[in-house]
């Protein structure tokens, strides 16, 4: 045995390797004074703490469930503030009014043939309520934990439910649905050291397995191949107001020329007194 022997990572570890490690460690530290040893331990703890906080994006304590590890509380009732794109979000625009969506020619042809009566007859009146269209709608959201690993987002507009799975492997087979399959993860932010310090972070989600629907209520389509990526931030103002901002990117290789990216904001409400579920409506 020599002190300088390098253990190859490609060689199976043996009991002797562990023994070698402790021998090396004892030789390395034994001549040190106690003060130096304490200094090193303290610095090591500080370093690991700093690294975990500043660099630990997505890192979670093994025992903590996503619900416990949440760096931000998204639960409660939230209302969409329709301060942007009002004419396209609050009311149903007329056929042909597609401004701002980077649709392609195939999408335009489909949208030009939009007929809500046909959608109703086909039982497809929820086409504008699939996840990418739903989030831009005039809706309230009710966010709760379904269990320790699943966040539930309900809308009263169209009475839809989105489930965000933190740990459960998302099924890749089966029928496509309006809300698809969403996987989620916490994105831990730097800052906030020490017990009791504020924690920061956001949620990233990716939704696939979407049933084809509409980005805008007047028939601008998205395809089943759409990938809907969202970043959820919560901002708390000095007066206590809280805003949920959903930065989202719609990637559709079939009907979009470019990723369709927007940010949608919601304001926290004190309770569910204004919650008013209404079914899907293909016309208004």
């Amino acid at each position, binding site marked *: 045995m020599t002190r300088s022997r390098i253990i190859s990572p490609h060689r199976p570890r043996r009991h002797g390797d562990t023994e070698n490690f402790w021998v090396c460690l004892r030789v390395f530290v034994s001549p*040190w004074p106690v003060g*130096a040893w304490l*200094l*090193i331990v303290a*610095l*090591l703890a*500080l*370093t690991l703490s700093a*690294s975990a*906080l*500043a*660099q630990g994006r997505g890192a979670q304590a093994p025992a903590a469930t996503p619900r416990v590890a949440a760096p931000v509380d998204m639960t409660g009732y939230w209302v969409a*503030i*329709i*301060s*942007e*794109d*009002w*004419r396209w979000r*609050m*009311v*149903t625009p*007329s056929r*042909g*009014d*597609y*401004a*701002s*969506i*980077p649709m392609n*020619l195939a999408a*335009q042809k489909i*949208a030009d043939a939009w007929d809500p009566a046909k959608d109703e007859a086909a039982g497809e009146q929820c086409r504008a309520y699939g996840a990418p269209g739903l989030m831009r709608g*005039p809706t309230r959201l009710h966010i709760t934990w379904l269990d320790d690993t699943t966040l539930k987002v309900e809308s009263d507009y169209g009475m839809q439910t989105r489930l965000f799975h933190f740990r459960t492997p998302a099924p890749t087979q089966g029928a496509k649905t309006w809300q698809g399959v969403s996987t989620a993860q916490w*994105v831990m*932010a*730097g*800052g*906030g*050291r020490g017990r009791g310090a*504020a*924690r*920061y972070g*956001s949620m990233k989600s990716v939704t696939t397995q979407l049933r084809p629907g509409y980005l805008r209520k007047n028939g601008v389509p998205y395809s089943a191949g759409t990938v809907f990526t969202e*970043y959820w*931030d919560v*901002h708390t103002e*000095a007066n206590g107001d809280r*805003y949920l*901002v959903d*930065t989202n990117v719609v990637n559709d290789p079939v009907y979009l*020329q470019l990723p369709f*990216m*927007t*940010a949608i*904001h919601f*304001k926290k409400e004190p309770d569910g007194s*204004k919650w*008013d579920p209404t079914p899907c409506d293909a016309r*208004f």
Partner: protein
Amino acid sequence: MNGIGARVVTFVCALVAFAVPAFAQVDLNGSYATRMYEDYIERGPGEFMGNFTGMPLSDEGRAKALLYTSNQPSTHERQCLPQSAGVFQYRPVGFRIWSELAHDGSVLAWVIGGDNLRNDIRIWMDGRPHPSPNALHLAGGFATGTWEGDTLTARLTHLKTAWIRRGVGIPASDHTTITMHITRRENLLTLTTIQEDPYYLTEPHVVSRVWEWNPRGTSANRPICNTANEIPRLEDTGIFPHYLPGQNPEEDYMVRMFNLPKEAAMGYAETLYPEYRKKIKGTYVPPAECSARAPGYCCGWIETQGRPGGAPNLTCNDGGFGTLGPRGRRATEQ
């Protein structure tokens, strides 16, 4: 230095070298290109006059906005007048963000670069207090910032009276304040502004937008503004373009054009929330097909984003500038 000391020094140096600052901040430095997928008409070709949808205007704010005509910015003294600090949310150009460093290398301020119509916004990060209310007001205001996780939150005060939005005359007073939340993740920058105004708004005006990091930085240049005589009848006549109260012919434009309820077009706060949709259900009648009614604003393709032209065979009209062909050129040029 003896052997033990050398070992200790080496060990400590290694620890320090691999350590990451506990309060790591996101580097915002760079140029960001606008992506006009929201409020495109206002940010691109220009908004319809009399369209205040999405605004929580007070009666005073609405009255002042209705005095506005699009000729006002053509007066010499207003051609280069800086617009509101938050107006970049409504403009078609990108911006650059850079850090200014203190002598020790720490970030003293983050700066959102302005252009010929908007001043720089300098967000001080050194904890300095906001000055007296009577201190100088600037178009870029006075801003202080703090990091809340990966989000830079800034509070702007000491702003000048300016138009909040682009080209429709919605005013902000010099008592307005703006809170900004700036979050960068990968190549996307989300910027949320919450504007309050005790005179012209009845509740905070919230806007959230997405920008995309643009290493070419071509959208963040700073052209010089020069004045010129844009409207001959305004030259040396003392005429100030405006509408008198109650005489703005555009006040009902959105009602005539899009069948919108007038309270929505005039920016009443109740129209911002989902219950308003239920209120007008049954009375709102969608307008006729877009292409026949408003041929200028109905196409999905956006030429003016700095992207290449439209998809093959996709033609549309960009609203007043002309019909665009497959590669984004005017139909008359092809």
